[in-house]
C-alpha cells in the first residue's frame, strides 16, 4: 500500500512550485531554528497563512520544510554558541560545542546537518511504511477508541511537560475548555462567547499559538538582555565530506534514527526525549564511552539523527490517527484541516494522492536540508550575529501579519496578544504551554467522538469500558497518570525510584 500511495502522490507532487515551496520552507526553517528562543513551531504558525494561499500539496511541502529545517537549525547555535536554538538541540551541545572548540566547527556543523538529513530520511521511510498499516488497523476504531486516543495525547503531553504533571493537566484541561468556545456542533448554540460574534468559530488556533509561543518568547528575550550584543562569529563553509563522515557511522546513525522514530511515534514524547535517549544509548554502546562529552563526532550524529528522525515519527500517529505527537505536528494537523483534509484512516482511502504527496514532501525536505544546509552554512552562521534589537521588532511584526493573515480580522490580533500574556505568565511560573496547544487541536476531536460514542450507545457511558481497544487505551492512560502522580515515598517503597521529568518539550 505504501508504494501505491507514493505513486499516487507523485503525480500531484512533481513540479517546480512544490520544489520551490519545500526548499523555501527548509531555508526559512533553518534560519528560524538557528535563532535562540525561536523554533520550528514559530515558523509553522507564522507561515501557515502563506500555506493557505497555495495549492494544498505545495502548502504542506512549505510547512514540512519548515518543520524539518527548524528541527535541525537549532544545532548550529548549539555548536557555535553553546546555546541551542531550540530545546531539541540541547543534547547536541554536549559534543558539538567541544568539537567546535577543538577548531572543528565546520565539521561539527556539517555533521549535524548531514546526520539530521539522513536521520530524517530514515524516519521518513518508517513513516511511509508504518503509517498505512496503522491507518488500516485504525479503520476498526469507532468513536470510543478515537476519544481514548485523543485523551492519550493530552495525558502524555501533560506527563512529560515542564513543571509537574498536575500543572500539565491543568493547562491541558484549560486548553480543552478553550476548544469548546464557539458554536456547539450538535445543538447549534453559542458557548462561552461573551456575546461576541467573532468567537462563533472558536478561538483561532494560529493567533493563539503565535501569541503563546512567539509573542511571549520575544518578551522573554528582553529579560535575557544583551539586546545590542553580537557574538561576532566568522562565517565558514561546512565540508560536503561531512556527509561521508556521517555515513561511515552508519550503525549509530541507523540506531539513533530508529530510536527517534519510535519515540516520536508515541504521543506526547518528542524530539528532546528522543535525542537524549539516543545519546545515552550511543554512549552506553560505545567502545570508548569516556570520549562522549569531549567532542566526539558520534555524539553529534546520535542526537541529530534522532531528533530529525523524530519528525517522521510524530507524523505517523498524526496522519494515521489524527493524534499529534507534539505542538509542531499539532500545527501541521491544524494546517491540513484548514486546507480541507481530515487526518485519520479516511485520509488514506479518500485522498491517497495527498498522503503520498506528504510522504514525498517530507523526504524532499530532508534532501533539501542536506543540500541547502551545507551550501548556505556561511549565511546561516552570519544570522547568529544579528542583534536582538533588530530581531525582536521584526519577529513581532511577522506575528501581527501572521495572526491577521488567517481570517483578515483584527480581532485575531487581540487574541494573539491575550495568549501572548498567557504564554508569558505560564512560562514564568513553570507551567507548560505545550498541553494548551495540543488540547486546542484535539479538543474538537475529543468532544465529537465522546458525544458520538454516547449517541451510538444510547447514552450509556459503559461504551468506553466495554470495547476492548478503548478500555486498554484508557487503562494505559490511567496507569501512566497514577504512576506519575504517586508520591516519591510510595514509589521508593515499590522500588521504582524517582521519576525524572523533562522540561517543556514544545519545539518552539
Amino acid at each position, binding site marked *: 500500500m505504501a508504494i501505491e500511495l507514493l505513486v499516487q502522490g507523485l503525480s500531484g507532487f512533481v513540479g517546480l512550485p512544490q520544489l520551490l515551496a519545500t526548499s523555501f520552507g527548509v531555508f526559512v526553517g533553518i534560519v528560524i531554528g538557528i535563532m*535562540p528562543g525561536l523554533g520550528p513551531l514559530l515558523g509553522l504558525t507564522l507561515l501557515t497563512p502563506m500555506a493557505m*494561499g497555495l495549492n494544498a500539496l505545495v502548502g504542506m511541502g512549505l510547512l514540512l520544510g519548515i518543520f524539518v529545517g527548524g528541527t535541525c537549525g537549532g544545532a548550529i547555535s548549539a555548536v557555535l554558541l553553546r546555546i541551542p536554538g531550540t530545546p531539541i538541540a540541547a543534547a547536541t551541545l554536549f559534543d558539538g560545542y567541544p568539537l567546535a572548540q577543538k577548531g572543528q566547527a565546520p565539521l561539527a556543523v556539517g555533521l549535524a546537518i548531514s546526520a539530521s538529513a539522513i536521520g530524517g530520511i530514515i524516519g521518513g521511510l518508517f513513516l511511509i511504511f508504518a503509517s498505512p498499516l496503522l491507518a488500516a488497523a485504525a479503520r476498526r476504531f469507532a468513536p470510543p477508541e478515537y476519544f481514548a486516543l485523543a485523551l492519550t495525547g493530552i495525558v502524555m503531553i501533560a506527563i512529560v511537560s515542564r513543571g509537574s504533571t498536575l500543572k500539565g493537566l491543568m493547562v491541558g484541561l484549560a486548553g480543552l475548555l478553550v476548544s469548546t468556545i464557539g458554536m456547539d456542533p450538535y*445543538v447549534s448554540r453559542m458557548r462561552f462567547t461573551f456575546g461576541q460574534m467573532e468567537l462563533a468559530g472558536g478561538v483561532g488556533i494560529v493567533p493563539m499559538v503565535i501569541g503563546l509561543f512567539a509573542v511571549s518568547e520575544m518578551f522573554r528575550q*528582553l529579560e535575557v*538582555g544583551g539586546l545590542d550584543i553580537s557574538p561576532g562569529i566568522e562565517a565558514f563553509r561546512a565540508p560536503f565530506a561531512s556527509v561521508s563522515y556521517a555515513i561511515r557511522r552508519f550503525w549509530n546513525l541507523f540506531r539513533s534514527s530508529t530510536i527517534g522514530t519510535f519515540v516520536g511515534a508515541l504521543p506526547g514524547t518528542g524530539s528532546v526525549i528522543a535525542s537524549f535517549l539516543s545519546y545515552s544509548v550511543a554512549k552506553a554502546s560505545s567502545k570508548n564511552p569516556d570520549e562522549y562529552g569531549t567532542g566526539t563526532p558520534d555524539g553529534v550524529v546520535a542526537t541529530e539523527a534522532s531528533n530529525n528522525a523524530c519528525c517522521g515519527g510524530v507524523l505517523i500517529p498524526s496522519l494515521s490517527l489524527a493524534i499529534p505527537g507534539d505542538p509542531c505536528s499539532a500545527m501541521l494537523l491544524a494546517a491540513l484541516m484548514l486546507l480541507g483534509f481530515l487526518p485519520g484512516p479516511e485520509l488514506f482511502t479518500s485522498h491517497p494522492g495527498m498522503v503520498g504527496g506528504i510522504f514525498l514532501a517530507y523526504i524532499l525536505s530532508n534532501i533539501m536540508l542536506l543540500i541547502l544546509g551545507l551550501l548556505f552554512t556561511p549565511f546561516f552562521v552570519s544570522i547568529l550575529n544579528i542583534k536582538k534589537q533588530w530581531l525582536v*521588532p521584526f519577529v513581532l*511584526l511577522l506575528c501581527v501579519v501572521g495572526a491577521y493573515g488567517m481570517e483578515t480580522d*483584527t480581532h485575531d490580533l487581540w487574541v494573539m496578544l491575550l495568549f501572548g500574556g498567557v504564554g508569558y*505568565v505560564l512560562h514564568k511560573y513553570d507551567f507548560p504551554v505545550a498541553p494548551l496547544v495540543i488540547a486546542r487541536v484535539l479538543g474538537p476531536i475529543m468532544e465529537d467522538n465522546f458525544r458520538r460514542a454516547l449517541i451510538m450507545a444510547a447514552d450509556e457511558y459503559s461504551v468506553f469500558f466495554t470495547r476492548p481497544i478503548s478500555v486498554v487505551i484508557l487503562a494505559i492512560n490511567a496507569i501512566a497518570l497514577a504512576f506519575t502522580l504517586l508520591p516519591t515515598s510510595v514509589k521508593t517503597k515499590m522500588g521504582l525510584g524517582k521519576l525524572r521529568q523533562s522540561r517543556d518539550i514544545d519545539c518552539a
Partner: protein
Amino acid sequence: MRTGEMIVTGGFVLVGGYVLFEIGTTFVALGIASGGGRDNAALFPGILASLLLLVAATHVASRLVKARRGNGQATQHAVVDVIEYTRAPGSGKLQLALLALLVFYLVLLEFVGYLVTTPLALMAMFRLLGVRRPVVNVVISLVTTLLVWLLFSELMRIPMPPGRFGLYL
C-alpha cells in the same frame, strides 16, 4: 508555593468556576444543559471544568503538604536545563513599554492601516530597544514594512489591514 504560581492556579479555578456558573445559568435557561450526547451542550465542558477544579485543588493540597513537611519549593529535575539566565536589570520596564507600544500599534492598525502605522511602530520599537542611529532606523523600518507587504500582500495575496481609510499601495 510561590505567589505567582498561586495566582495562576487561582486563574484556573476561576476558569473552571466560570464554566460551571455559565452551565448552571445560561445553559440551563437555553435548555441545553441536560440530556445525552446529542442535546447536552454542557456535558463535555462540565466534565472538563469539574476535573480542572479537582486537579487544581489536588495541586494546592500537594503543595501545602510539601510545605508543611519542610520540602520548600518542589524541585522538578529537568533533563534539559540549558537555557537558564538571570533577569537583565531594567527589563521589566522595557517589557511594559514594549507592551504599551504593541497595544498602541494594534489600535492604530485598525484605524489607520498597515502602511502608515507599521513603519512608525517599527521605528519606535527599534528606538526603545536601543538603536541609536536615526537614519538607519528609518531606512530599515521603511524597507522592512515594504518587504513584508510585498511578500504577504502581493506574492501570497494575504491582504494587510487597510484601516478605516482604506489605504492601499
